[in-house]
């Protein structure tokens, strides 16, 4: 590891270089996320068609200019359902990341700053959480809380608490023993004040990058739960649910699963690309 000082100069130099050199994949990723965000905020602007009421006469039509993503078995427009579904996936992912970030940071900061027995206990708890497969943990939490998008999002958030806690703790431990924190203590800084003013801000950069990465994972996890029937109840146009509903038509009506599936893939890849960009700015 290089010293913090040299690292910062490096980062400043590359950041300057990056500004001059446009990265097409990053621009594309941001564009995808902006569009999907717009879908979530104002779906009616992108499609005039009702996502829940179908036209039975136009059932199972292949993608066309009229129905960009085709129609499903009861004649609902799949593009419209995908657009209206954005809000469920995005709000779910935001809840999941917030839960993971807030609880994980709290545990990580406490463990890293107090140290000793408290650190041991908290980290063993985190070990236990990590030992349980994420999907199984999420399912158990949903069974306890009941079905629904919010509960599914909360469950996905809980499963990521451990990973956030580990990351934050390691950063806090690193920063905690750096000279400027010792100096802050030495100059009479109170424990909490030093923690909030010096330790926390300097520990969070990799955590933010991880949160962006987790945003993509959360969309995927929420869709998985929706696919398995633990998320939003039908006829909500939730992405995972839509993919599940179309899976019996894979051989005859490929668009029902393929197109919403591609949208999920695009959003997740875009979130990952953004996360990579954020991480490299350290």
């Amino acid at each position, binding site marked *: 590891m290089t010293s913090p000082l040299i690292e910062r100069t490096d980062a400043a130099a590359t950041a300057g270089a990056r500004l001059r050199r446009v990265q097409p994949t990053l621009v594309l990723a941001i564009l995808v996320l902006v569009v999907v965000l717009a879908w979530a905020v104002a779906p009616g602007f992108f499609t005039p068609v009702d996502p829940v*009421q179908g036209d039975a006469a136009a059932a199972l039509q292949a993608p066309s200019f009229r129905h960009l993503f085709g129609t499903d078995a009861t004649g609902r427009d799949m593009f419209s359902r995908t657009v209206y579904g954005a809000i469920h996936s995005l709000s779910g992912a935001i809840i999941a990341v917030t839960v993971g970030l807030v609880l994980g940071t709290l545990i990580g900061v406490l463990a890293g700053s107090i140290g000793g027995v408290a650190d041991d206990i908290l980290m063993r708890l985190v070990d236990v959480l990590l030992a349980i497969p994420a999907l199984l943990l999420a399912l158990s939490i949903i069974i306890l809380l009941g079905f629904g998008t919010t509960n599914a999002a909360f469950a996905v958030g809980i499963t990521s608490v451990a990973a956030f806690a580990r990351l934050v703790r390691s950063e806090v431990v690193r920063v905690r023993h750096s000279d400027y924190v010792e100096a802050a203590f030495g100059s009479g800084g109170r424990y909490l004040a030093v923690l909030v003013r010096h330790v926390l801000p300097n520990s969070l950069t990799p955590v933010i990058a991880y949160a962006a990465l987790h945003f993509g994972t959360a969309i995927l996890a929420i869709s998985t739960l929706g696919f398995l029937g633990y998320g939003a109840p039908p006829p909500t146009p939730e992405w995972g649910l839509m993919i599940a509903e179309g899976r019996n038509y894979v051989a005859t009506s490929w668009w029902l699963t393929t197109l919403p599936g591609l949208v999920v893939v695009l959003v997740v890849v875009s979130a990952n690309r953004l996360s990579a960009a954020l991480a490299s700015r350290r």
Partner: protein
Amino acid sequence: MALRIPSPRFAAILALSTAAILLAGCADTRTAGSDPAAVGAPITGGTAVYLEQQTYTNLYPPAAGFYPNGGIMNQIADRLVYQDPETLELEPWIATEWKTNETATEYTFTLRSDVTFSDGTPLDAAAVAKNFDLYGRGDADRALTVSEAINNYDHSEVVDASTVKFFFSKPSPGFVQATSTITSGLLSPKTLDLTLEGFGAGNGEDIIGSGPFTITGEKIGTELTLAAREDYAWGPPSVEHQGRAYLDGIQIIVTPEDSVRVGSLLSGQADLIRAVEAQDEKQVEAAGFEVYAPQTNGVNNSLNLRFRHGILSDIRVRQALLAGINRQEVIDTIYTANYPLATSTLSKTALGYVDESATLVYDTAKAEKLLDEAGWTRTGDGIRTKNGQKLTLVVNEAAPQPRSFEALTLISQQLAKIGVDLQILKADAGTYAEAIQDADRVQIYHSIVGRADYDVIKSQYYSTNRNVLLNRNPQDNSIGDPKLETLLEAVASKVTPAERAAADKEVQDYLAAQAYVIPLFEEPQVYSAAGYVQGFGFESVARPSFYNVWLNK
């Protein structure tokens, strides 16, 4: 198999014969399905691969109404009486003849004397008596229920080794037909000592019947292997084929995904499949495969309105739901010609059917008017409300029924137009089983029942049978509509066919007049088989029969 190095001459013969087989195979695929008349004499041998949609749950015969259970039971167990699936006539099988007294309270059956179970025990009068004592009375200690096909059973009497008498506390006119159903499969006396768990999945090999096949292997939840009985010689006399089954065995593989089942059939990995969903029928037919759609001949695929729930206790709301659902559109959009529009609670091919189509008219204007009158008001296109309560109803997704979810989704869209919010319960098995017994959680119950007897309507609606309308409240056992109970009791206690048909008509008229039931369509079981599969047949409610099946390849 040991490897031997063949002599050059042997190798040449082998090559030639392989080429011949390959050529024959090619010719076969070209003609398969297109000319079924051009098949020769049945060939004995081979194993058929049969893909099931769901895993079986239990092989206690009265639980065999569930199609995956019945599909196995029909191969391993014989019945006293054979019901011709075409004519619905009752013909001799294990019983050579039977007679009853005038009040239908006593039945005497005379049995064949040459029948044995696959464990070697003889199928005699004592064994038959033991079977019906269990199916007719159940055994609460072992959690074994009374067969819903058998009513008013009292006791049996073994007259001699080949004669058995049954006594009933009240007339039980449906009993002879009941002995022909899959739920009266004859099992070995030892098997009858099992508990409900003993009959359950995982213990398939313990279930001993006298049928043309026996269970020889099981991978729990995924696979079941059946083998033909070499000494089987007691098929129903009216069936042309006698002696052992043509097939050596059947491999039943559970394949829940519709697209995977169809794909496996089309690619030749399976010989027969159950539950070809409507959207796949065209694809299967286009590829030259045979589609079979036998009818289930019982209570139609229907929505049962639980009239004891607050919202549905108003007949105007029930009538509005009936008038607000465009059943024809459901059939046209979701199903195919194999799913005829229902015209009564009972199917056209069921015994006792009467046409009630005059009461089943789609009329949204009438529906809206009825709801207005009932006090359910709406502003604009929203969901109707009354005293702050929303007009929201919950219907269960009937997972075993074809495309239940899609049909309900469409119906929910139709009802939204008249201001009714219909939600679909889609849940895991445990939650589901609990919810459907509670009118506060499921107000509309989607289901069917198949049985080719006048009694079938009683099976579906009677308080101590399926009780789908929840006329009997499961919490306090109170009865909501005593008149319905009386009418259903009449069905199961009248003696002559004419009287029973009249009783069935009364029930259908009453259900229609009260708008308790919204019948959707007459449900078939849709199967498909490769062109070389010959002799694939069904019992009277469309459960598969492999006894006559042979592979023309």
